[in-house]
């Protein structure tokens, strides 16, 4: 049995799965249920000044019959009185001292407000803080949330205020609503943050009601941009995470990865790209807290299979595998191969390649089943056919190097070698 526990700046949790700051961590009742289900920790729903929410609040993108592939919301930070939140935090920590209790903060934009909030939360029993510099809606209009996260200078200043006061670890949560998360990440590290987390939600319009012509979510005939999250944002989150994990400065602090984590596999990917813990919101909102069971078991089994004893054995292992395009090996080549025994003759590979790629698949007419085969000399190895094939392992990409030696684009160009081979 592998050890799946996490140690994040001294904050321990029995597993690396935390609930992100959001409705699942909004109240004692939710958090107790989460802990009973087995979650390693929570980031308590963001506390700050008093706000008022609207109705409705959420909308989603469904795809191919699957609900909530992407999710968006226009909710604000906690709309419950601060003293109730603090009291509940104390009670929860007492009942579950072995779980991580991070409290998310978004104070008014002045030093005194931040200091006061930090004091109150530390007194309540918080083990760490997460600074919410990411909320893309509602709070920015008040100079908070993403308004802070989008301006590295302001971010640095606020982090400095926080670091003056805080005696427990501080994580700065980054907004993805910037062209690069690195400048704010660096500013936060320069300001003294102990760790980073990312991503918060991405501004979005999920869709429009074609009867009323009002976009979602609907509030009295109007809508606003909502924060997008869920499985749809995972690839973007992973990319942003990578840029933080690869930057000289930001890579020095631990990272908590967020954005579309739904399964143990997603979590492992975030960890391979440098996250020590991962945070989950949408998946829990869609399925409830019970999903953590398989997350723990799946992670455990995978680690056993691969021989990893602790999560530190694999955290960050894929970071160096993402390189620059100009460093890729141009002599590498692979060609699609169709396993005729597995093929179900759906023709999806053919039409994809024929219409939109390189006309590299041959169709031999049959009634009712056509036979498809690869024209090896035409195939550029783009993967499209393999990606669209509905049968697992039916199309494989087989390595056929053009030449044994490594050569990258810069060398290729320097040698004046031929271009446009297709």
């Amino acid at each position: 049995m592998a050890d799946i526990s996490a140690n994040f700046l001294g904050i321990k949790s029995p597993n690396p799965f935390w609930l992100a700051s959001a409705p699942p961590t909004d109240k004692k009742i939710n958090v107790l249920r989460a802990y009973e289900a087995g979650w390693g920790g929570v980031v308590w729903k963001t506390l700050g000044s008093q706000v008022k929410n609207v109705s409705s609040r959420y909308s989603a993108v469904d795809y191919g019959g699957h609900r909530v592939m992407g999710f968006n919301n226009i909710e604000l930070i906690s709309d419950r009185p601060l003293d109730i939140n603090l009291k509940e935090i104390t009670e929860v920590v007492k009942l579950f001292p072995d779980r991580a209790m991070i409290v998310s903060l978004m104070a008014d934009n002045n030093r005194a407000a931040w200091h006061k909030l930090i004091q109150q939360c530390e007194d309540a029993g918080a083990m760490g803080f997460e600074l919410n510099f990411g909320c893309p809606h509602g709070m920015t209009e008040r100079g908070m949330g993403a308004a802070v996260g989008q301006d590295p200078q302001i971010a640095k200043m606020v982090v400095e205020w926080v670091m003056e006061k805080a005696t427990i670890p501080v994580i700065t949560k980054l907004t993805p609503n910037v062209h690069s998360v690195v400048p704010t990440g660096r500013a936060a590290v320069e300001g003294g943050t102990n760790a980073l987390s990312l991503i918060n939600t991405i501004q979005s319009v999920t869709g429009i009601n074609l009867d009323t012509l009002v976009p979602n979510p609907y509030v009295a005939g109007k809508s606003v941009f909502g924060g997008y999250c869920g499985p749809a944002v995972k690839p973007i989150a992973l990319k942003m995470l990578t840029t933080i994990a690869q930057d000289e400065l930001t890579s020095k602090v631990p990272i908590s990865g967020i954005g579309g984590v739904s399964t143990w596999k997603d979590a492992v990917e975030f960890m391979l790209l440098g996250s020590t813990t991962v945070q989950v919101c949408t998946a829990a909102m869609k399925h409830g807290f019970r999903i953590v069971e398989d997350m723990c078991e799946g992670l455990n089994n995978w680690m056993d299979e691969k021989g990893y004893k602790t999560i530190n054995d694999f955290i960050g292992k894929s970071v160096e595998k993402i390189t620059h395009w100009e460093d890729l090996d141009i002599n590498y080549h692979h060609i699609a191969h169709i396993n005729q025994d597995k093929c179900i003759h759906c023709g999806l590979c053919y039409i994809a390649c024929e219409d939109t790629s390189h006309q590299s698949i041959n169709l031999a007419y049959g009634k009712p089943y056509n036979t498809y085969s690869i024209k090896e000399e035409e195939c550029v190895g783009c993967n499209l056919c393999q990606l669209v094939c509905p049968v697992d392992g039916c199309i494989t990409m087989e390595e056929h190097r053009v030449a044994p030696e490594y050569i990258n684009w810069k060398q290729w160009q320097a040698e004046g070698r031929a271009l446009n081979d297709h």
Partner: protein
Amino acid sequence: MISNNRLSSQQYEQNFADIHPPFETQDAAMVEANRCLFCYDAPCMKSCPTSIDVPKFIKQITTENIKGSAHTIFSSNIMGAGCSKVCPVEKLCEGACVYNLMDEDPIPIAKLQRYATEKAMSNNWQLFQRKASIGKRVAIVGAGPAGLSCAHVLSRQGIDVTIYEKESKGGGLMTYGIAAYKVTPQFCEDEVNYITAIGGIDIKYNQALGKDITLQQLQQDYDAVYLAFGVGLARQLEIPGEDLKGVEDAISFIYELRTNNYASLAVGDKVAVIGMGMTAIDAATQAKRLGAKEVTMVYRRTQEEMPCTEHELHIAQLDGCNIIWLAAPKEIKGVDGKVTQLVCETMQLGEPDASGRRSPVPTGETIVLDVDMVIKAAGQMPFDALVNSNGIENKNGKVTINNAATNIVGVFAGGDCVNGGKEVVDAVQAGKDGAAAISKYLGISN
């Protein structure tokens, strides 16, 4: 004893309820529609005799473009609604669905087709508009699937169509032959009305060719004639005792069933059904559903050679019909002119015959079944007298065609009267082929 009124009205209703119920909700249809892979040059489409673009109409269900979906179906098959209820899909589209190759259940294509077409019919979406009349007139004989399909295509092109139908209702065997638990009389009527709503199609009922009208007259009055009168007469067994009371042919048995209320229909206690085709299955299951205590099907070959599909066999078996393989009827015995026994000779399989199936050879032994009713489903015979008397070239009564044209100039034919009896969907395609040939003959470029 042969008697009617065997069951309560509730039991009748239950026994003849829709055998393939529709999707109850849009969500249910969506789950299945979303499973469809949207295959290219799809095997299901190639296995539909009318070549309905199955992936396209299913995709249109997933995008909630139900009108478009129905249009896709009806453009290839104007009886797409009826076909969704009666097609033997396990040997057509669904049998070819690629999911079979993954050992997964195929997409329920017919059920999805029904989903879209039912919406179109119940909302009375008229998805086709006929061109203005071009002054050409075509007569069609028979308002069955072939005739109606031909009529619809012709009318779309602005041709004025008159259909002469010997019965008082349209739909052909859809209305008079197909099992009652597949389609209701109301549905058949609605379908005919939905098809003819395009306009330009005038059905004259109770008009039989050879009795009320002549081919000569039609040739004179119209620019072209399309023969779609199907096959009619039940084949005789040519064994002693066929004239005893209690011996019926399946076609008339089902005709009665489709045109009367269930309670009025008489059925025996112990019924023997001869044959193992679709008609035999329908007769056996419906006899059982009318309240017969025991139904036994006898077939002279084995399950390997049976003409019905496995799926149909299962319907009969699930209804509790007994099946005796390798038994050929030899004689029907009776007392006081009423059936009491069916004597069968047991068979064994010999060499393959012309159809490639191993032919049964008598063993010399006989078995005797105590029965009070015998339903013969030994196939139907073409209207050879009608065909011959009009000088139409034919093969054993089946009209010979070349690209839908008969040997008589301006006279075309298709459907069961040509193929000797296949499925509704084949007749619909034949109607389309006939319309294309007629348009060409009339010099209409389309």
